[in-house]
């Protein structure tokens, strides 16, 4: 992956920049030694790496503002970073950039059960937001797989989804307000504890803007009362197409499961070997979960199983207890770990219209053979959000490039059938050069014009989202204008 050539002027004034940053932050909050900056050279996508000029760890909105103001004045690019769990390289630094980590901003500011909102600092992890309200039986709904570690800041930047978004929506649907620090250090508020921010929906724009428009330091999030219970049913099919048809029938029947997860044979085999959840060996496995009181769950699962039976499943297992539910989810939850045991992997997340599922799976399997790299599929079937995991050997020369090429072909296929490049991980560094496959030049120009408004110098999270050529041209223009 090509990275922009670092700005020599910035590199040459590193000492001055570090000194200025140290003047507004505690001593241990500025990391600049080369032995230490290396730990910030990548996020959850370790295939691409580049140590930053420095990393800073502010502990308040005011400190974030002070850092941005200095970087703005010095013309230094800033890469905001939540917990560094991005699978798209969303927090990958450039050599001339400052990493702005929000890990120390992790307080709960206010919990308000009557209005059903919680206000947190955005370095707080997703799961610990639920942790803060679960004693009162509330929860924060978006649940990306990395929810244990990922920060709300990153969730907002990428508009993260999760397994249960079929019912509860993704981050943007659960975000009511933010404190935003602009690149020049200006602190402002968007929305609040009320519904629907007034004026233009800038809140909706900020969510999913991959840290390129501003740094979000505080967020007001909707919290919901926990359902009385939840239980899944597991079904196995001998054919992908049949499994796909079953998903469509369930949705059409008017039952709205909270999650419909899909695993294909390579994935079932790998997770069975690793976690031993007792899955049937078949072509496609579905886990469908519903919520409510026991009686409500029974009724919904009954209906779902009735539909499933019409598609001749090779296995149909309804959970009757918490233990059985855990067993059904075990394999799915171990899927990524299981892949890590086999080899290095790259996880894509293109979305497709549910109707093209069988065709896309067939094409992926053909491409996998052509490239000679194994691909396992595990994904949120209810919303068509695929997660093809391409296995490769990072220590084998040429394998990463092969994997990238296969990944690009799979994502182009997603676009071709009417879907998109990324459903929840974000474009980041990984998919920026594929943006031209989904968007016309004018569409990209339109999006870049938005960035011009928020960050005219193009300093925030450089070299992401847009094709490198386009974003570099923009930066050069901004520099020339100065």
């Amino acid at each position, binding site marked *: 992956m090509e990275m922009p050539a670092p700005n020599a002027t910035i590199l040459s004034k590193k000492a001055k920049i570090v000194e200025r940053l140290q003047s507004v932050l505690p001593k241990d909050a500025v990391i600049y030694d080369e032995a230490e900056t290396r730990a910030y050279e990548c996020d959850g996508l370790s295939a691409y790496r580049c140590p930053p000029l420095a990393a800073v760890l502010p502990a308040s909105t005011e400190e974030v503002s002070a850092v941005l103001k200095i970087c703005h004045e010095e013309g230094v690019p800033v890469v905001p970073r939540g917990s560094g769990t991005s699978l798209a390289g969303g927090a990958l630094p450039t050599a001339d950039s400052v990493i702005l980590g929000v890990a120390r901003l992790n307080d709960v500011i206010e919990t308000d059960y009557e209005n059903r909102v919680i206000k947190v600092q955005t370095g707080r992890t997703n799961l610990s937001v639920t942790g803060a309200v679960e004693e009162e039986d509330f929860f924060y709904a978006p649940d990306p797989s990395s929810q244990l570690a990922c920060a709300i800041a990153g969730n907002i930047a990428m508009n993260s989804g999760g397994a249960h978004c079929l019912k509860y929506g993704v981050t943007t649907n659960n975000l009511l307000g933010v404190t935003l620090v602009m690149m020049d250090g200006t602190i402002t508020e968007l929305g*609040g504890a009320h519904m629907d*921010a*007034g004026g233009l929906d800038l809140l909706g*724009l900020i969510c999913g803007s991959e840290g390129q428009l501003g740094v979000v330091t505080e967020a007001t999030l909707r919290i919901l009362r926990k359902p009385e219970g939840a239980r899944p049913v597991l079904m196995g099919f001998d054919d992908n197409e049949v499994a796909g048809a079953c998903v469509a029938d369930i949705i059409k029947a008017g039952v709205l499961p909270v999650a419909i997860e899909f695993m294909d044979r390579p994935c079932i085999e790998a997770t069975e070997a690793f976690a031993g959840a007792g899955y049937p060996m078949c072509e496609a496995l579905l886990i469908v979960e519903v919520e409510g009181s026991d009686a409500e769950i029974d009724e919904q699962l009954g209906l779902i199983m009735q539909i499933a039976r019409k598609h001749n499943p090779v296995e149909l297992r309804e959970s009757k207890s918490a233990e059985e539910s855990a067993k059904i989810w075990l394999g799915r939850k171990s899927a990524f770990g299981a892949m890590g045991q086999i080899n290095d992997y790259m996880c894509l997340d293109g979305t497709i219209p549910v109707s093209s599922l069988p065709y896309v799976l067939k094409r992926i399997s053909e491409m996998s053979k052509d490239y000679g790299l194994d691909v396992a599929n595990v994904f949120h079937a209810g919303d068509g959000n695929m997660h093809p995991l391409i296995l490769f050997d990072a220590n084998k020369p040429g394998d990463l490039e092969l994997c990238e090429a296969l990944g690009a072909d799979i994502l182009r296929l997603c676009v071709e059938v009417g*879907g998109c490049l990324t*459903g929840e991980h974000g474009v980041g560094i990984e998919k920026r050069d594929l943006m031209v496959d989904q968007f016309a030049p004018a569409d990209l120009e339109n999006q870049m014009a938005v960035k011009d408004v928020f960050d005219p110098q193009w300093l925030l999270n450089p070299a992401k989202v847009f094709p490198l050529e386009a974003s570099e041209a923009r930066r050069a223009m901004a520099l020339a204008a100065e």
Partner: protein
Amino acid sequence: MTPRTETELAEAIASAKAPLRIIGGGTRPIGMPVAGEVVSTSALSGVELYEPGALTIVAKAGTPIAEIETALDAENQRLAFEPMDHRGLLGTTGDPTIGGVVAANVSGPRRIQAGACRDHMLGVRFVDGAGTILKNGGRVMKNVTGYDLVKLLTGSYGTLGVLSEVSLKVLPKTDTQATLMIHGLDYPQAVKAMSAALGSPYEVSAAAHMPDMGQGAMTMLRIEGFEKSVAYRTDQLKAELAAFGEISVEADPVKSAKIWTASRDVAGFHKVEGDVWRISVKPTDGATLATKLGTDKLFMDWGGGLIWVVLPKGTDLRAKMNGTPGHATLMRADEPTRATLGTFHPELAPIAKISAGLRAKFDPRGILNPGLMA
């Protein structure tokens, strides 16, 4: 002008020499009046794609809501955000369009549970102020590719671009519904009761409160779902809220639905004289504000977070809000009042600067509904 294709629309805008007034069905004259040649999207009409199994519908912007609803109805699905029909309140006629709903981010009582119009938006095609045809989002349910201009366009009242096509997420209809009615509560008690209901695990899909307008104050809670489930949750909720006062249940789904159509369209104020304001605040602030306003020409939706109030002509509601976080829109008033008070809530300086910057990028010549969102 009534362009028949997206291309014609683009050409019309590109060749415009003066401000344009963009309308869909023309049933929602919200905001400051715009002087300019009318561009109507009503001829850009028709459902392009509807996949019930994928819960998605794509339609041209001028498609009447009625047409969309008929199509969805046939598959037992619906627009879950329950868009309000503004005709009664604003005294307009015509056919509301899906483009109008999106441009004004119109939602109804189910917004508290299912989200607003913007939460169901999957993609848009639009023409910007330079006449360029653009798209953002798509037709799949999860999509974070590039910036979310779908949200930005939704609720932008045609000031950033003219919508030509929209794609939305749809949801299955529910089997049946019932409405719980708690009688005789004042505003703070009503908000407490609605908060308790919305904070329960019984999936209340709407919560509204009507003060005493002759038939006694009434706090209403809607439960939807499968028949047995609705019965179960109604019972549970009734027991849980017993302490608030007398509770009756409207178990007839047709009658229950009527209550919510009336709430959605704020039917109580259709014939009431005065300025109509729409206020979005957090529910507990809603209780305080409603008490302070001291009027019974007030209606609460969204668990107390949405307040509709009729005030004597020219009253500056925002002054009475006295800094309460949230925003108030002057929905119905004569032109001089609108000009004096402004229709949309004033923005913080940094936000106003960004909004102006965005408008300058999307519509460099300032010809799309100029000044409407003031």
